[in-house]
């Protein structure tokens, strides 16, 4: 980093809100040539909004943004790309069937004087570029044959080929192993040496230590602090990332837990989940957390039979339960309320009542369904969890996210399951709806159901869970009792690198 140079990006007091909710609040930021500037913060801290403004997808409500001294007034992805700001999103891969060279020059083809594709020249140019990045990648190999870190390198090469001055990397190591991670970090350093400014977003603090010249912490849309790479410590960053007022937490009522009722023994699947075991009691709400891809959703899918496991045993009560498909799971009183409700939970073409009985079809006696009966039963849920809808025939796509989620919950509760897995039950829904969901979960626990709540929302985990299990790299790394649940503890286990390696 060289502060004597003019900044590549200079942002003053930038704010952005969506329908009354401020997601970015008075943020100022600088990026200098050759600097790796890390951006850290919890989910919802405003990182992705920040990136989207810089890449031209959003227009800020107020604030000044200068790119290489030029005041930006018009926000369009194309404008920002032409200014040399290139964004590489996590797990956004290029065309896996095409060669490395073709990917690098996609849309900006290398042509001969006659205007036709010149593949030989293209390959040569790609080779030169890759060599200059000190990468040993064959430009004529198919991208699909490369490993994850090489694919990322190709994406970076593509950005350089398009004359990038600023590179925004959004969790580039999200799906990487250790060696691949090292590779990517060293490329990032090398690229920075060329005078390119890099904004690096990561949940992994160990990476931040390795690569950052400066670190900026965002929390609830505000900039909390900016540190030089040399002054940061893990504790300091986590404290800045957390630091929330405790009144925001939901206060739940305590429930007496019953006997041990469930045991998961050695659930595993190659490349998906390492051997995992735990036990649960009746009336317990067990929180599961960890980064996306750490194994929590994977575990839920294995339990529910949505993905076939390589091995493992499930005991409910004293009975061993065999589940090889969601169909069997439902029959055995297990349900999974998936995270992506629109993609995996709802039938958007159809009405509220139609959706409500969609997991109940197999439970109707005989060959017929009884929609009227279903609609009547839906009305009970409409009252119980405050679903705001014009009625059972209203098409579900016209409900708000929170109400859609409540219909999904009602759909699953109607199957009368005992073991309920909630995957991010309050993601993307407003505070009022969140409280309704919490109340419902407590109510279920009181009835002796046993509940897993997978969540990335730490205040939610702390408020709701009797116990929290933290997963990392497809394993359980910690099992914390209610008394010891703290935001710092959870973050330390799930993203901290040093303590548990």
């Amino acid at each position, binding site marked *: 980093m060289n502060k004597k140079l003019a900044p590549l990006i200079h942002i003053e007091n930038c704010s952005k809100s969506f*329908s*009354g*909710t401020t997601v970015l609040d008075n943020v100022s930021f600088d990026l200098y040539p050759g600097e790796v500037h890390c951006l850290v913060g919890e989910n919802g801290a405003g990182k992705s909004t920040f990136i989207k403004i810089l890449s031209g997808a959003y227009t800020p409500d107020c604030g000044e943004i200068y790119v290489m001294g030029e005041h930006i007034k018009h926000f369009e992805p194309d404008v920002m790309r032409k200014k040399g700001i290139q964004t590489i999103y996590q797990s956004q891969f290029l065309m896996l069937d095409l060669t490395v060279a073709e990917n690098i020059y996609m849309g900006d083809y290398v042509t001969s004087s006659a205007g036709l594709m010149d593949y030989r020249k293209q390959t040569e140019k790609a080779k030169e570029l890759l060599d200059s990045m000190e990468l040993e990648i064959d430009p004529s190999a198919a991208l699909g044959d490369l490993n994850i870190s090489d694919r990322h390198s190709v994406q970076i090469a593509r950005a350089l080929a398009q004359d990038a001055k600023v590179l925004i990397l959004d969790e580039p190591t999200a799906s990487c192993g250790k060696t691949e991670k090292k590779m990517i970090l060293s490329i990032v350093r090398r690229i920075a040496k060329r005078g390119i400014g890099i904004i690096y977003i990561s949940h992994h603090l160990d990476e931040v230590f390795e690569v950052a010249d400066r670190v900026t912490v965002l929390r609830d849309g505000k900039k909390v602090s900016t540190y030089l790479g040399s002054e940061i410590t893990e504790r300091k960053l986590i404290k800045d990332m957390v630091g929330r007022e405790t009144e925001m937490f939901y206060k739940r009522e305590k429930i007496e837990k019953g006997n041990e009722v469930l045991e998961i023994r050695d659930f595993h699947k190659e490349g998906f989940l390492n051997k995992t075991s735990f036990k649960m009691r009746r009336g317990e709400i067990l929180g599961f957390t960890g980064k996306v891809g750490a194994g929590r959703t994977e575990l839920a899918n294995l339990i*529910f039979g*949505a993905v076939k496991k390589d091995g493992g045993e499930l005991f409910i009560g004293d009975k061993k339960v065999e589940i090889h*498909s*969601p*169909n069997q*799971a*439902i*029959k055995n009183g297990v349900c*999974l309320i*998936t995270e992506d409700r629109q*993609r*995996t*939970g*709802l*039938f*958007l*073409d*159809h*009405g509220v009542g139609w959706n409500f*009985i*969609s*997991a109940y*079809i*197999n439970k*109707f006696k005989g*060959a*017929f*369904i009884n929609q009227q009966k279903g609609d009547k039963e839906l009305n009970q849920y409409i009252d119980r969890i405050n679903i705001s809808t014009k009625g059972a*025939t209203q*098409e579900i796509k*016209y409900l*708000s996210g929170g109400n859609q989620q409540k219909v999904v919950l009602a*759909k699953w509760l109607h199957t009368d399951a005992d073991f309920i897995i909630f995957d991010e039950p309050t993601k993307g829904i*407003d*505070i*009022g709806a969140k409280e309704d969901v919490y109340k419902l979960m407590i109510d279920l626990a009181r009835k002796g159901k046993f509940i897993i709540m997978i969540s990335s929302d730490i205040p939610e985990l702390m408020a709701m869970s009797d116990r929290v299990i933290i997963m990392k790299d497809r394993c359980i790394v910690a099992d914390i009792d209610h008394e010891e649940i703290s935001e710092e503890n959870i973050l330390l286990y799930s993203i901290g690198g040093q303590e548990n390696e």
Partner: protein
Amino acid sequence: MSEKSCPSREKISTRIFKNKTTAQIFMLAVALVVIIIAMCIATDRFYQINNLFNILKQISILGIAALGAAMVIISGGIDLTLGTIISLSGCTAAALMNNGSSIGVAVLAGMVVAILCGLLNGALVVLSKAEPFIITLGMMSVYKGITLMVTGGANLKIAPGFTFGRAKLFDTVPLPGIILVVMFLLLYFMLKYTRFGRRIYAIGSNSEAAYLSGIKINRNKIYIYTLNAFILGIGAMVLLSRLGSGNSIMGDSIMLEAIAGAVIGGVVMSGGRGSVWGVFLGVLLIGIISNSLNLLRVPSFIQYVTIGVIIVGAVFISNIGGSKKR
């Protein structure tokens, strides 16, 4: 936090009607009424009872096939072997009758062949995990080849007693028309009120959510293709008895019109939506228009153009009516 209300998200058509499908069926009904009134003014031969039953007879086989097509499309699939299954099933029965088998045996064999074709289609779609479009495109050629082997390219005379396709009840109502109406009612009840019907919609609407809701996707897909073929087998028998002889391309041309009838009737090609009422009106529209054009002595090539324009127009209207992505 206050949630901003956005009333503009709901289209006017869906505020009046329960949903888009109902809105499209309504428009279809309006179109039908307009054409019928216009034809009544244009020619006095249209509204005669004989002509109306004639229309019913003319659309009977198309209607039966369109029911099968609609069911498969609602489940998110497509069956391009539709026409060739009719040909193969019909020719199997015809060949047996031609060789002196009894009507009962021949009809049974024709139906069994149809069902086997459907079973095979379903199994291949499930096992290959490939697009049903490609699988059934390939199988279309296979069934066509087998049909040619069965007939040897000849026109096969059927048993003289096999004439129910030309029979009329009380000397006025054509029997195929009655069969069509009965099948429409059965399919209507199945799709609307049975668990199997509900699963068909669920798989077509969102197969991942359907799987996670405990629906056995593969098994049901095989059922769907097999039931479709069973329906086509019935269509083949009606067609065969009406034609009086079997030939290897007897059903081939029905495929496109059957799919067209379903789509005009509001069945969405991506699956999940559509109703039997719509299909009935869609097929009726095709039938009335070709009947009208015949009565008005419009040359047949213009008829092709007209049907094509209606298909494109119907899809156009249904897509414009749909909500655009932001």
